[in-house]
């Protein structure tokens, strides 16, 4: 789950990392009031989950309350990279001397957290040459002690014993404390702004591990899903909207992706990704099919390899849905594994649905029907 910048900055404050003075608002009038109180030029930042916010026009500089009000008005009516702007963060403008990059990420290859830092922070970190990037794997049993943070600062070409170096060292250790405390997959500060002897986190990008949310009740919920996707997630299904013409339901992420690949291979396009998971029962199957049908695809392809999932249960659910929704959308089913013969009998006799043993023939048939 990704957090908005202002939420990330609140967490930074909680862990002793300095951020620019500022407040959030959702009307131009309050934007002006905040700018008044901050005094001087301010940054007006759209609170959206998109990266590339600066390039997308989501960040404005305003001189005083009047300009702030105007900029806020415009931003609140705009979208940034497809995300509607509903909230703004108004901050004091910093006098930045140098911009650094600092992040911590869970790295699957080394099976460790990795600290990434660069003396070249700012907007285009993806284009920073490899040799300018510091990568430090962290031993979780050791953590990120002060000596290691000091050495990271040294490698950033900043004297660790200088006031600024000391402040940076503290930011590095604090960021690791935050990273572990909130079960983050990613915490990123870009830019980390040096202003004299003080260091500010001028931005905050945080992703919290979804599997850990149960033990972080204090972290607010942020949803970036479409309505269909939200519905599915409540049911424990994994659903993604796509823009093709064949509705898809399968069990398991890998086989669902392979099903999409096959549809594409035979010349059509999938309307969605829906993985009902292992051991899906009738209820989950029904709800899943309802989601698929709601998009009015030209055909539906169901691909089930029953391990724990029982094919006859899936078949019952399909028959039920068929009774309820009629037969206007053609449906092709592939059943294999546990109780496949019983499932096939139910579908063919009770609903006249074509059933295939092989995924490939089923996909071909679905493409034919949609064409």
């Amino acid at each position, binding site marked *: 789950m990704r957090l908005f910048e202002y939420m990330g900055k609140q967490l930074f404050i909680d862990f002793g990392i300095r951020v620019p003075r500022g407040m959030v608002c959702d009307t131009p009038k309050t934007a002006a009031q905040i700018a008044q109180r901050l005094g001087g030029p301010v940054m007006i930042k759209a609170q959206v989950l998109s*990266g590339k916010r600066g390039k997308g026009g989501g960040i404005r500089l305003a001189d005083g309350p009047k300009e702030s009000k105007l900029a806020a008005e415009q931003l609140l009516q705009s979208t940034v990279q497809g995300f509607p702007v509903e909230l703004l963060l108004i901050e004091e403008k910093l006098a930045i001397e140098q911009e650094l*990059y600092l*992040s*911590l*990420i*869970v790295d*699957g*290859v080394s*099976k*460790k*957290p990795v600290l*990434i830092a660069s003396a070249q922070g700012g907007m285009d*970190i*993806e284009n920073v040459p*490899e040799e300018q*990037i510091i990568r430090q794997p962290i*031993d*979780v*049993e050791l953590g990120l002690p002060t000596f290691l943070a000091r050495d990271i600062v040294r490698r950033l070409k900043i004297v660790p014993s200088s006031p600024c170096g000391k402040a940076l060292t503290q930011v590095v250790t604090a960021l690791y404390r935050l990273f*572990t405390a909130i*079960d983050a*997959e*990613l915490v*990123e500060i870009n830019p980390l702004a040096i202003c004299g002897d003080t260091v500010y986190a001028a931005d905050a*990008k945080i*992703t919290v*591990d*979804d*599997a*850990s949310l*149960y*033990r972080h009740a204090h972290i607010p919920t942020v949803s970036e899903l479409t309505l269909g996707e939200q519905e599915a997630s409540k049911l424990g299904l994994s659903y*993604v909207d*796509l823009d093709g013409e064949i509705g898809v339901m*399968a*069990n*398991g*992420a*890998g*086989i669902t*992706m*392979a099903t*999409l*690949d*096959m*549809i594409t*291979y035979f010349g059509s*396009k*999938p309307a969605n990704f829906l993985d009902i998971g*292992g051991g899906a029962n009738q209820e989950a199957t029904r709800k899943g099919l309802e989601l698929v049908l709601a998009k009015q695809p030209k055909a539906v392809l169901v691909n089930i*390899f*029953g*391990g*724990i999932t029982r094919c006859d249960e899936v078949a019952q659910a399909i028959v039920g849905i068929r009774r309820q929704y009629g037969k206007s959308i053609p449906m092709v089913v592939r059943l*294999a*594994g*546990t109780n496949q013969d019983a499932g096939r009998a139910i579908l063919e006799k009770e609903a006249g649905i074509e059933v295939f043993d*092989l*995924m*490939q023939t089923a996909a071909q048939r679905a493409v034919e029907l949609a064409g």
Partner: protein
Amino acid sequence: MSILIDEQTSVLVQGITGNQGRFHTQQMLAYGTNVVAGVTPGRCGMEVEGVPVFDTVRAATEEYSIDASVLFTPAAAVKDAALEAMEAGIRTLVIITEHVPVHDCLEIMAYADRIGATIIGPNTYGIVSPGRCKIGIAPSSIFFPGSVGVVARSGTLSYEIVGNLTASGVGQSTVVGIGGDRVVGQSFVDILRLFEADSATSVVVLIGEIGGSAEEEAAPYITQMTKPVVAYIAGQSAPPGKRMGHAGAIIERGRGTYHHKRRALEEAGVRVAELPSQVTGIVQTELSMLHADPFYGLIWSFSRPQQ
């Protein structure tokens, strides 16, 4: 021979009294797996399918010699259960549970690396050595003994491809699910190394998917292997997945896409199937070339045709 497990392997089931634990203990026993004990705190003295249940892993290891443990423990308790098993001396763990917090995995893997334990998973169907031993939740009926090693990230996709192999009479030496999570115990390379050294394996099937860089990490090792590798990668048509901000892009540097993975593997000499249904045909071709080669096993690395 097989890798990781065989008919001698004595198995502990952690979380044996839950629905999944109970059901799959029965399935594993029916397959011939040597399940000797189970653990569920507070359920000491019970039996599940005739298997005695203990309160702690140490209580079980005091009475039985245990080679491997399979975990059906709820996600929130996996870290404790895995550390408990390793601390009690068990050196092979299969973690079936999905949605284990990633920072818990980091701690489990750090401890495992330090003491030299092998972790399969989390979020895996486990390991099957057909006809010998099954640890995990894979449907028993799709496996058949033979000489093809299979390693995969995804569960049902493994079933699909292994089912196809078996239907065509192509048996498997060992089938391993390394797990679908970001942080798992064994990489493709770890398992490929074992297959390379395993005398019962002659061809390896690698089943990958988009995201992460596990397939790319495997490519350099594959160039050193003497055994042919056949691959399928799921997700060719999937929309770009969740990106982990800039840091994700930096770590992966353009890796993780279907085409990047495919190119990396093909450059390493891997034959990559376009569809899962094509894997069997390619494996059969590789097998027939092996059998036709009079020098097979002697100078295989020189006689192997280059793609």
